[in-house]
């Protein structure tokens, strides 16, 4: 069961992959099918239920794209 939840402000994402790099569960990836307003593939979560809400992704995101919630 997901202890955490991540919400993306997708149009702010610059596709830098810093979040995907630091997620301990490697559940973040760039959505290569999407192009956002800025012209980048935005980050997205692949297995939301594995999110532990550790917020490491949010802390590393230079563009404050991610909000994190936890039980």
């Amino acid at each position, binding site marked *: 069961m997901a202890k955490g939840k991540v919400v993306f402000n997708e149009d702010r994402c*610059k*596709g*830098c992959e810093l979040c995907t790099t630091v997620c301990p569960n490697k559940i973040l990836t760039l959505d290569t099918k999407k192009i956002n307003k800025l012209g980048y593939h935005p980050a997205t979560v692949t297995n939301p239920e594995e999110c532990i809400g550790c917020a490491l992704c949010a*802390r590393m995101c230079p563009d404050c794209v*991610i909000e994190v*919630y936890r039980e």
Partner: protein
Amino acid sequence: MKPVFTRPRSLADVTTHYCPGCTHGIIHRLIAEAIDELDIAERTIGVAPVGCSVLAYNYFNVDFQEAAHGRAPAVATGIKRALPDSVVFTYQGDGDLASIGTAEIVHAANRGEAITVIYVNNAIYGMTGGQMAPTTLAGQKTTTSPYGRDVKLCGYPIRMAELLSTLVAPRYIARVAVNSPAHVQQAKRAIKRAFEVQVNDRGFALVEVLSTCPTNWGLPPKKALEWLEENMIPYYPLGEFKVPKEAE
């Protein structure tokens, strides 16, 4: 579910002009968090440098002044002396602070101006297209050190935190990095402390933040984090060089 991480109120809700993966953005957020946590937004005045962060005034929900290249500490001095109860911080790059602005930072520090200086060392001139900075590492190639920095001709990269720590007046001087979540947490503590020192002790505080410039380093953002870890940290050791007396 409770929010465990949300955008700090003092960080303006806009898209920045920074390149993808540029850690200037992380540092901005840490400053905004410190301002929020200390609840000082309404009396904080920021001073932006000339450098990639020249538009910083757009990214914080606080009053701001844009300084001439290198002169942010002098501008901050003017503000602080005019408004002693304000909280004044400068945000400066390594070209800005460690090159053209050397005299201004040394003397603001020496005077013990009650300001907070966030010094972003990315070992390069980002904004102007990747020229050598005084902090550029030995052998590092830049657009004005195309054969790699030759320390015989240009000297060694300058360690400002150490240099300024020889002065009597500064109350807090630290070097941190933002290339991993753990380092980001450390950086956050240091930055908050640097504001506290201003608010509580009316002292000078400086945090040197090792930061990346994926664009001019010619590296993907993730690799840039590694390059920082492997090349910058060994030369620019992290740590607190000066801490307020009572906490020593």
